[in-house]
């Protein structure tokens, strides 16, 4: 019964979404309020039906309804309760439901928020969003139906992919998809602005805020993905330049470029065309990312292999890009900028460079991801470019971006005088140089790491300098330091939110540099009772025990670790044997620390427990990634909070319009 009901609900949602998109477009074109109300009701209906779809599937999971193929493929009677709920998005079909549902939720928010305030832009934006929803519902109806019936009904299911039995699985896809789908809102408003020809300030304000929101979730998704990779996959890394990671990273880069270049448009009325292009690119890249993940065209640890769905995404992507860029070409006359660049030493030019480097990074990631495909198609030669390529090309680009991060927010608009440069940068540059020199004295030998440290210290100094000046100015009005700081953060939340994000990036940069340069590892086979040593740790192999869990069986090794001061901790890495998997899966154990993590992977072992092979890694400064990530997301959250009205209404002093 459930498969048929689910399918019926999906089809109903598809019909409603198509109708709503049509009615919305017609109401916008002809100015008919009755049709508009009707398309709003359709948007609400689509959300209700998709919610019903999700609940129905969750219900099927909770009741082990193996007549639904998706349930049978992704769970079994031993799957723990929480993972029966998250199995909802554990594979292709369910993840499309989640996607569609989030999109319908964003549509609903747009209806609630802009129905009254944006009478011109809103109807077209609604039509575009419902049109995109229609596509995802079409995918749910034809190439990837989540409610496909399985017959005969099996006694038990296949079980969830064991790698997905992790708490990261609860949050990572949700955050990532909220980011991906979130970029639909700016795209829809950009399209609406192009259609009605009002490419002025309203769409920019709406688009900017929604881009920050989507960017916030996408950043969160990427960070949790890194954490999942680190503590589940057992290779001791957080980022592998895997095609699917790249797919999520590319829209992040273009959205970051937009968040910066949009400030030039707000301030100087320049770069309208460029900003629209960035919005279209970002949205297209989210579709391209989904295409990469779902089509199985590129082998990847996260890719779901399904053939027929790829062509749907490819055609839709082609239509979206064709439509959007045609609209852009049609309105090109209205998008000409009104001002020009005055000087190389100006904030505009710093931001332009920032955009150039971000787009270059996005392009190199794109190029490296599709290069194997291109090479095979053109030369018939199978090749791959892995992490070495991405690291080699991106390290200089990201170092340049860090440098600009220090320059951009402080340099003057239009033309920076020598006095402005001296006042803002002399001290930070000096502190940066001293910082790098100090690191050298403390024994940092790697040149790239030294450069990175120097740049990070320089940028941190610019942020501190700016903040100190602003807080001092506020203190003159009688506030205490704490009040002054707090007041600044709240009153100019976009600027200071941006600074906090920058600080987060700096901490992450140190984590990346440190972990790349100073991590160390060894692998050894140890007899029971014997030990292996690495970097001051002594790891003794004590015991090997079998443990039975509800849906698997595992062999747990016990290792007692002591450091120079004495006993440190006991780690228990394991190997898990799932009946549905042909080969075992390693379960890492680790002890996180501020400067270094101890990370143990159980390799081979003797069946009588007499010896075991263990990989020991000392991963340095990895925690900085998570701390930096936390700072970054806090900063983004601060920037999302609406600015107080009085700040927005006042003519802005120079340093307000930056985030």
């Amino acid at each position, binding site marked *: 019964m459930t498969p048929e009901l689910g399918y019926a609900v999906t089809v109903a949602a598809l019909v409603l979404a198509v109708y709503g998109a049509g009615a919305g477009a017609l109401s916008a074109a002809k100015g008919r309020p009755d049709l508009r109300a009707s398309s709003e009701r359709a948007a609400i209906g689509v959300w209700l039906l998709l919610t019903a779809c999700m609940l129905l599937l969750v219900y099927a999971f909770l009741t082990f309804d193996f007549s639904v193929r998706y349930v049978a*493929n992704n769970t079994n009677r031993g799957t723990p309760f929480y993972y029966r709920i998250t199995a909802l998005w554990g594979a292709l079909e369910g993840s499309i439901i989640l996607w569609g549902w989030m999109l319908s939720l964003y549509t609903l928010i747009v209806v609630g928020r802009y129905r009254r305030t944006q009478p011109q832009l809103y109807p077209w934006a609604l039509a575009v969003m419902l049109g995109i929803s229609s596509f995802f519902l079409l995918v749910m109806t034809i190439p990837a139906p989540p409610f496909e019936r399985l017959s005969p009904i*099996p006694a038990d299911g*296949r*079980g969830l*992919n064991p790698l997905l039995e992790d708490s990261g699985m609860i949050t990572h896809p949700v955050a990532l998809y909220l980011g991906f789908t979130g970029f639909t809102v700016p795209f829809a408003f950009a399209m609406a602005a192009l259609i009605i020809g009002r490419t002025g300030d309203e769409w920019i304000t709406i688009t900017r805020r929604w881009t920050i929101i989507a960017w916030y979730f996408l950043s969160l998704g990427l960070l949790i993905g890194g954490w999942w990779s680190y503590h589940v996959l057992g290779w001791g890394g957080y980022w592998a330049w895997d095609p699917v990671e790249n797919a999520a990273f590319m829209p992040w880069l273009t959205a970051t470029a937009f968040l910066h270049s949009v400030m030039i448009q707000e301030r100087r009325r320049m770069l309208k065309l460029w900003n629209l292009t960035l919005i279209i690119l970002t949205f297209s890249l989210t579709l391209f990312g989904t295409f990469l993940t779902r089509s199985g065209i590129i082998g990847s640890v996260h*890719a*779901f*292999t399904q053939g027929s769905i790829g062509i749907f995404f490819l055609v839709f992507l082609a239509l979206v890009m064709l439509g959007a860029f045609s609209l852009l070409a049609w309105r090109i006359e209205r998008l000409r900028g009104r001002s*020009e*660049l*005055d000087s*190389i030493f100006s904030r505009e*030019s710093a931001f332009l*460079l920032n955009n*150039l480097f971000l787009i*270059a990074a996005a*392009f*190199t990631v794109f*190029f*490296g991801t599709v*290069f*194997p495909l291109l090479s095979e198609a053109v030369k018939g030669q*199978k*090749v*791959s*470019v*892995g992490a*070495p*390529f991405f690291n*080699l*090309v991106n390290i*200089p*680009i990201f170092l340049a971006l860090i440098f600009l991060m220090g320059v951009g927010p402080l340099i003057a608009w239009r033309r920076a005088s020598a006095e402005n440069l001296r006042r803002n940068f002399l001290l930070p540059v000096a502190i940066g140089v001293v910082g790098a020199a100090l690191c050298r004295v403390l024994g940092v030998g790697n040149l790239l790491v030294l450069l990175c440290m120097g740049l990070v210290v320089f940028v941190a100094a610019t942020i501190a300098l700016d903040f100190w000046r602003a807080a001092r100015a506020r203190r003159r009005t009688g506030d205490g330091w704490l009040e002054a700081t707090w007041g600044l953060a709240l009153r100019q939340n976009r600027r200071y939110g941006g600074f906090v994000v920058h600080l987060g990036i700096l901490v992450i940069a140190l984590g990346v540099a440190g972990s790349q340069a100073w991590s160390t590892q060894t*692998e*050894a*086979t140890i007899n029971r009772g014997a030990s292996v040593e690495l970097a001051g740790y002594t790891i003794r192999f004590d015991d*090997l*025990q*079998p443990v*039975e869990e509800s849906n698997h*069986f595992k*062999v747990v090794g016990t290792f007692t670790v002591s450091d120079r001061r004495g006993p440190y901790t006991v780690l228990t890495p394991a*190997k898990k*044997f799932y*009946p*549905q*998997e*042909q*080969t*075992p*899966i*390693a379960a890492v154990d680790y002890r996180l620390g501020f400067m270094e993590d101890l990370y143990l992977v159980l*390799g*081979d072992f*003797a*069946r009588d*427990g007499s*010896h075991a*092979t263990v*990989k020991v890694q000392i991963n340095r400064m990895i925690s900085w990634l998570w701390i930096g990530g936390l700072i970054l997301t806090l900063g983004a959250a601060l920037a999302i909070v609406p600015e107080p009205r009085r700040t927005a209404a006042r003519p802005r002093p120079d340093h307000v319009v930056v985030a």
Partner: protein
Amino acid sequence: MKRRAKFLAGGLVIVAALAYLVYAGVTQSVVYFVTPSELGAAPVAGKAYRLGGMVQPGTLAWDPKSLDLRFTLSDGRATVPVRHRGTPPDLFAEARGAVVEGTWSRDGYFQATTIMAKHSEEYKAPHDGSQAGYKELLKTLRGPEPKP
């Protein structure tokens, strides 16, 4: 106009530098994907390859003490002996696909730095015979009285 030209020239210089960076990156780090027959036909010592094939049954030798792993990859027509230092990855087994990255050694074997076991994304339904030795393993670890 003159200022515009200057900006354009500056931009072009940066773009050219980035293009060179990408070009150098590709030429330095491109890894050719070869089959055992292709590698056997024209092996170049010291060049990075990614070699894909099936682990020939009966050739897998793993010495836990020295962490020395040896096996032969085959594509049905040719075979290549492979050596690696370290535990075989979880999904690695005889008669299964594997991709190894490394270099051809002058002494007539492929020195692998990474082993990537090919693993299908389709999760197989449990059936007898899969995970050979699973029950036996449970038994030996538990001692003589295995729990059902």
